């Protein structure tokens, strides 16, 4: 029987949640790396027993952990993230030049064909790659050194490279997204990059439709239709049908189009999920009601999903890397909150139940579907 393993990163450690395909009874293990911020935990598609975790601390810096037994035991691997060239400066919040400094790894993206290959998106924005299971890391500097780099500025969480998508149809195509620079695409395995932000409009930057400067919160893709991308921007939910070359807004009837995560149903490329958040000054759900919104039309038309979710007095947030889907039939959807709940829906969002209620603030959620 199939199983699922949910990998949860929190402000105070990592947790591994296991269930069978029914997804109604859960075994919870952790905290791993207790007391450290775990920005992301993700498993290798090539070897699901291999997991990588980003463990960080304002005191002690960056550690990368690797497990080869599905999270039962872990070993620290390489933590040396050196920019390949003189880092230079980006813009600070007030527009003044600020030195490019490594702070932490936000996102780890294991490659599909090789368990030893994994990409890391870091703050200050840069893309790194390891081909030895995380023991050593080399920057792909073409992104950071893009001519627009000196104009990039941090979002509220820092100038983070938070999204990495590897195109399953074109092995040399990589997408990355940076707050607050925008979305970028490489068609040569990360050597060179182009901004793919045409159609985005952002208040708060001098030129609303500038090539860069947009606070992209998250990108999502369905592997069966890789030229279609979905984006939750700071404000606006967006869609591209041409691999990011152009975008159009699909916020439609959402109660607010501010939010962080966006994800796609495992079997229905036009079914997408977001969690509307009131605003950038009120990082909690509208009306104190935690609602996932689902569109079955690839955007524009949205329905609230509320069964099993708190519909009063709820003031949590759902962060950008804290939603994931499994690939069972039917598709399971998962998300974690800053209040420490991890919710699971075994029926594509129709009903929800908490797996756990009282973890530290959840930073990231990933799911592995295991046979």
């Amino acid at each position, binding site marked *: 029987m199939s199983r699922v393993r949910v990998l949860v990163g929190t402000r105070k450690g990592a947790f591994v949640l296991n269930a069978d395909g029914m997804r109604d009874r859960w075994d919870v293990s952790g905290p791993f790396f*207790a*007391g*450290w911020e775990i920005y992301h935990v993700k498993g290798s598609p090539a070897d699901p027993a291999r997991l990588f975790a980003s463990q960080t*601390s*304002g*005191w*002690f*810096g*960056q*550690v990368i952990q690797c497990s080869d037994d599905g999270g039962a035991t872990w070993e*620290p691997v390489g*933590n*040396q993230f*050196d920019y390949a060239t003189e880092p230079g400066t980006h813009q600070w919040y007030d527009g003044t030049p600020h030195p490019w400094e490594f702070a932490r790894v936000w996102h780890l993206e294991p490659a599909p064909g090789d368990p030893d290959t994994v990409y890391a998106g870091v703050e200050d924005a840069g893309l790194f790659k390891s081909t030895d299971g995380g023991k050593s890391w080399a920057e792909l500097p073409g992104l950071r050194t893009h001519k627009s780099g000196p104009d990039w500025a941090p979002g509220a969480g820092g100038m983070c490279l938070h999204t990495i998508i590897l195109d399953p149809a074109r092995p040399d195509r990589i997408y990355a997204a940076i707050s607050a620079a925008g979305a970028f695409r490489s068609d040569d395995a990360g050597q060179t990059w182009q901004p793919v932000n045409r159609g985005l409009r952002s208040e708060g930057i001098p030129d609303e439709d500038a090539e860069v400067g947009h606070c992209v919160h998250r990108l999502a893709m369905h592997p069966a239709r890789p030229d279609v991308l979905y984006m939750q921007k700071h404000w606006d939910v967006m869609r591209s049908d041409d691999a990011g070359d152009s975008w159009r807004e699909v916020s439609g009837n959402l109660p607010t189009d501010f939010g962080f995560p966006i994800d796609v149903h495992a079997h229905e490329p036009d079914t997408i999920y977001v969690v509307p958040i009131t605003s950038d000054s009120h990082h909690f759900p509208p009306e104190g009601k935690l609602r996932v919104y689902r569109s079955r039309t690839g955007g524009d038309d949205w329905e609230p999903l509320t069964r099993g979710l708190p519909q009063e007095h709820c003031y949590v947030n759902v962060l950008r890397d804290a939603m994931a889907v499994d690939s069972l039939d039917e598709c399971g959807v998962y998300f974690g909150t800053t209040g420490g709940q991890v919710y699971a829906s075994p029926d594509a969002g129709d009903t929800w139940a908490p797996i756990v209620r009282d973890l530290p603030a959840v930073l990231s959620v990933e799911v592995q579907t295991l046979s």
Partner: protein
Amino acid sequence: MIRVVLPAHLRTLAQVDGEVQLQVDGTVTQRSVLDALEARYPMLRGTIRDHHGGQRRAFIRFFACELDLSHDGPDTPLPDAVAAGAEPYLVVGAMAGG
């Protein structure tokens, strides 16, 4: 033997209990002690000082013999009591959190 006390999170990372005891050849300095520590426990590289210049991380302090050595030069000899193993060299996470 040089005695080193690590903060709790780094003891967990290095999988050690209590003090670490290190053999340090030559003059006992902060650099030579930390070099020996990182050689024994490579997972600590980058968590106390940076990978290149050995710059102390901003939220790390070094104490010994009731002295704050955080701003001493890395090659300044440590107190005789540390070199003799009578007193530990303390790696401390800066106090924060209320």
